[in-house]
């Protein structure tokens, strides 16, 4: 039943992505992109429906099944009726050309290694790391209850004994809601298979979106290198923890990737970008900051480039998940958040404390170094790649790229500001969270930087194949070759 639960949500997401995106060639990039988007967007959509069902009707598994099958039927119908309207697009450099195919074997090897590591980590701690059982899966257990006790998932009493910040009943509900939905399908509340599967799928889908989106908007070499670089970061370590950090990083990445795809003549994809943004807010409180800044950037981009229709598409996608998130956050969730009782005076006092800035910078340096293995650090890897291949300045100046990079940097600055004003012990707060917060940014950072890098394919020199000639009386004639350059800046 767990497999069916996952297939249904993935199908819903896949069909939605297929309706709103063009059909891309090559087929592998199209399938990988839509499946990877389908996994995460489908989880977000069904998580929302599960929560709304419980809120409006009550904790009934039967209602949940019926709602979702109706949703699936609607998605299939919409997919069928729009099948002739979908545009075809060819990604010029998505397939390997020449020697660049040799990037595939090491990528597959690293992928296999990451699967082994995921299995090893999960076998070592099947209930995940601390926050998994103390926060996310614990609330999922409450949410999955078949009676009124499901509301204890956001009861202020959850924090009462363990202390402030222990279980976070104020946290958004995407991850816990989806796991609870899976448990309500399997009838096995607390079974470790569901949260493990969710962690694995979000990890895989993040890599899938990164590789396929880069292949479509840029080139094969950048796509595979993007995947390799991501799999050389702490993403590999945090994936099996069953936290919400990989999912929120996935939604940030999907939102940015869909922005760039939409900008390249696929306007309905702005709707999917807005949807991903909304789901980031439904996943973690940091996602609310992301949603605010992304909305501002998108609005500025749309108004300054006369793309009002793009803004409407984006807003249409973001509307429902944001409405659910804000309703939950401000009407239902208890005032138990870490920053719930921080006053303006507290903020001002901490903001002028120079030692806090030093502490944050020091932790940033230490954790940045820990994100890689010596020289094999993602910042160094991308820096080296750009040093050899150079940046495509024209792409960097594109309004959509400026909007996306600006949003990413602003969100990062926002994260640092929350550390500056945290009411918790600053060292403790940094030591227990900064390492995994990098995982929010790596996929998007890698995607956006590689999207403005030149690709090796753009430096290719094509030599036409030599023309065949008939051998004359036992001798082989050799013809001269001519070369034509295919350089593009």
């Amino acid at each position, binding site marked *: 039943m767990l497999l069916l639960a996952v297939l249904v949500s993935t199908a819903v997401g896949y069909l939605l992505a297929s309706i709103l995106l063009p059909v891309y060639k090559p087929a592998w990039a199209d399938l990988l992109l839509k499946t990877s988007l389908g996994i995460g967007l489908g989880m977000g959509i069904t998580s929302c429906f599960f929560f709304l069902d419980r809120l409006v009707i009550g904790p009934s598994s039967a209602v949940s099944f019926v709602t979702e099958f109706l949703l699936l039927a609607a998605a299939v119908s919409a997919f069928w009726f729009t099948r002739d309207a979908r545009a075809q697009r060819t990604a010029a450099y998505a397939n390997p050309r020449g020697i660049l195919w040799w990037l595939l074997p090491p990528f597959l090897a690293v992928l296999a290694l990451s699967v082994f590591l995921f299995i090893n980590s999960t076998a070592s701690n099947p209930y995940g790391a601390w926050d998994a059982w*103390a926060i996310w899966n614990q609330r999922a257990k409450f949410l999955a209850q078949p009676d009124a*006790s499901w509301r204890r998932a956001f009861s202020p009493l959850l924090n009462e004994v*363990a202390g402030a910040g222990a279980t976070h009943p104020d946290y958004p509900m995407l991850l816990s809601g989806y796991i609870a939905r899976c448990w309500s399908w399997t009838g096995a509340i607390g079974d470790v298979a569901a949260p493990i599967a969710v962690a694995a799928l979000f990890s895989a889908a993040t890599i899938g979106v990164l590789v396929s989106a880069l292949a479509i908007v840029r080139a094969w070499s950048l796509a595979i290198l993007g995947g390799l670089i991501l799999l050389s970061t702490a993403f590999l370590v945090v994936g099996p923890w069953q936290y919400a950090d990989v999912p929120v990083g996935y939604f940030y990445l999907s939102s940015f990737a869909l922005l760039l795809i939409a900008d390249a003549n696929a306007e309905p994809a702005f709707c999917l970008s807005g949807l991903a943004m909304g789901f980031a807010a439904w996943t973690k409180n940091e996602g609310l900051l992301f949603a605010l800044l992304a909305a501002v950037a998108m609005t500025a981009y749309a108004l300054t480039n006369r793309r009002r229709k793009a803004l409407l598409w984006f807003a249409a996608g973001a509307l429902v998940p944001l409405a659910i998130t804000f309703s939950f956050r401000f009407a239902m969730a208890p005032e138990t958040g870490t920053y719930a009782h921080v006053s303006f005076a507290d903020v001002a006092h901490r903001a002028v404390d120079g030692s806090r800035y030093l502490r944050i910078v020091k932790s940033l340096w230490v954790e940045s170094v820990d994100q890689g*293995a010596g020289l094999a650090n993602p910042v160094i890897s991308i820096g080296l790649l750009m040093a050899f291949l150079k940046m495509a300045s024209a792409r960097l100046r594109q309004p959509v790229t400026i909007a996306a990079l600006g949003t990413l940097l602003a969100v990062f600055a926002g994260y640092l500001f929350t550390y500056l004003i945290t009411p918790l012990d600053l060292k403790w707060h940094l030591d227990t969270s900064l390492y995994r917060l990098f995982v929010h940014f790596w996929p998007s950072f890698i995607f956006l930087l590689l999207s403005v890098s030149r690709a090796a394919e753009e430096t290719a020199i094509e030599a036409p194949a030599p023309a065949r000639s008939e051998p004359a009386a036992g001798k082989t004639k050799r013809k001269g070759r001519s070369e034509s350059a295919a350089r593009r800046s």
Partner: protein
Amino acid sequence: MATVRYPIQALLGVGITAALSVYGSFSFYDQQTARNKMQENAFQVGLEEQRFAALKHDLPADGMVGYVSDLSDNGILLAAQYALVPVLIVNRPPSGLVVGSFSRPMDYAEFGRARGLVLVKDYGEGITLYRKGP
């Protein structure tokens, strides 16, 4: 079919980036598998579920209970809450029932008496149920 060649600079950039990333992945794999071995079942959540199973069966599904222990570790408390869901651990349980979780054998009844609690049942493995005394 046309043959494609790349400038050596491009191949070096791609090759070095790929090699560094592969090295990084293997390095993380080595470090993390060693860490996993040391931290196997670090939180013993599954064990807590087994320890509390019999007690949980005797509690009302929508109940609220208090909590006492010989250890003040937040992790042990949170693991107990995870095991007891949907029963909620609170400071002032309306039912008067209090769950005890102990790391070693002791006189549980005496422990309870010192805190105004009456021992209701000893479930073994350091799990007890108390009721608030008159």
